[in-house]
């Protein structure tokens, strides 16, 4: 049986996502060794820092290149991250029930990103920039002791926020029964019409308006 699919993410953005995701994981792990004393032995001799630096370059450069190649995507993405309306509020209210019990009551139709994804996206932007700025300053290594301590502090707070949210992100994609389709969105770029209708109703309506049914 043929399953109708719609394209959720184009190839360039999927490449960016996976590049970023991969580098984040490495950065997260190589950073965590300095944050968790029990893992400190892994940081000996600084090889983790070397890896951290190489990957940090990818982490920072990848979105920059993407933005340069497709500036409109940057504008669109930023707009998306900062467009919030009352549906988002309703989503926040209804989401816990939905994610624990599957009860869709009160869940408003969502755009290309649901409120949760949008929040994650916002976090990625804000703390990604934080990481990049504080990281580069630490790399340069010429700041005074107290500034350096501030840099470490901000870098660490960013780690805590992004790290915990990252756990959530992974869980939802891989383990949460309702979210299996989102994996396909980033893996193949396509999601089923059914999933699109259920999870991104607004967006589905937008992309199908005037085009007839997608196939």
């Amino acid at each position: 049986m043929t399953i109708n699919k719609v394209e959720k993410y184009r190839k360039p953005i999927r490449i960016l996502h996976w590049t970023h995701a991969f580098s984040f994981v490495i950065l997260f792990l190589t950073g965590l060794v300095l944050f968790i004393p029990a893992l400190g032995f892994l940081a000996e001799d600084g090889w983790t820092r070397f890896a951290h630096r190489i990957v940090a370059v990818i982490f920072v450069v990848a979105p920059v290149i993407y933005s340069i190649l497709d500036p409109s995507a940057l504008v669109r993405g930023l707009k998306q991250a900062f467009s919030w309306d009352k549906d988002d509020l309703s989503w926040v209210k209804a989401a816990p029930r939905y994610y624990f019990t599957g009860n869709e009551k009160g869940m408003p139709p969502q755009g290309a990103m649901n409120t949760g994804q949008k929040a994650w996206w916002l976090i990625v932007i804000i703390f990604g920039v934080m990481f990049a700025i504080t990281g580069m300053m630490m790399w340069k290594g010429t700041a005074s002791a107290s500034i350096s301590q501030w840099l470490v502090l901000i870098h660490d707070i960013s780690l805590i926020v992004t790290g915990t949210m990252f756990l959530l992100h992974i869980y939802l994609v891989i383990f949460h029964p309702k979210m299996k389709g989102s994996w396909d969105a980033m893996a193949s770029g396509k999601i089923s019409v059914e999933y699109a209708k259920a999870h991104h109703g607004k967006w589905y309506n937008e992309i199908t308006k005037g085009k007839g049914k997608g196939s």
Partner: protein
Amino acid sequence: MAEKAILYDATKCTACRGCQVACKQWNENDEFIPTIQNGVNSTNRGSYENPIDLSPQTWLKMRFTEVEPSGGKLRWLFTRQACMHCTDAGCVRVCPNGSLYHHELGFVAYNKDTCTGCGYCIDACPFSVPRYTRNIITGFAKMDKCTFCTSQGLDRIAEGIEPACVKTCPPKALRYGNRNDLVAEAKSRVQVLKLKGYSGANLYGENELGGLHVMYILEDSPDVYGLPVDPQISGLTAAWQNVVQPVGWAAGGLMVAVLGLNWLVARRAGVNKETK
């Protein structure tokens, strides 16, 4: 075991810098001199004080300060600049993997092999003592500072002998011994100095930061010598250690707990599998 300490009597020190050189010699630290083709090209910067700063190769250096209050007598003050071996040591607090630790005799030792080169200790030290040279590209670095002569293979303390700096001091301005004895000795020396007319004489390090293991006898306020009057672990060090780290672990833990719960609850509630 009784805590050991070094007592530095600035009022007896003549700044001959035998300690500075002996430290380098014993610890096999290279001189910090840019070399030119045919030898050594080093610079006098208009002072007896050289090298200009502590470095990974300079764990101990003497500081020279000329003080001349208007109308008062000129003084030339000499101070030791090296690790103070605090009881409440900022560096030990922030060291991510325990490479910096308190030796059983009280002072701050470290294991250079396990040092990650993160540099947190450098920022956390109230006396600005630890140093490293970081490779700007790779980030490889190893922290160095006074080891109290306990470096592996060069451990004088384990052999029951005093640190190299103490050994070499001609006017006995440096003393090594049980901390309690030295505190008592220093207090009586301070009294003697006060009787001699040094009303500001004081013992620095008896209680600072939980008690230093390098204590100074000074004839004047510590700030005259360029020492912090009331050294403290910085608020950032404390915040980082007491707030951010626990919050981080809590946040991570909480998230894992919530997700675990969700997993259990959502399955048990029989949330429909998405049809493809």
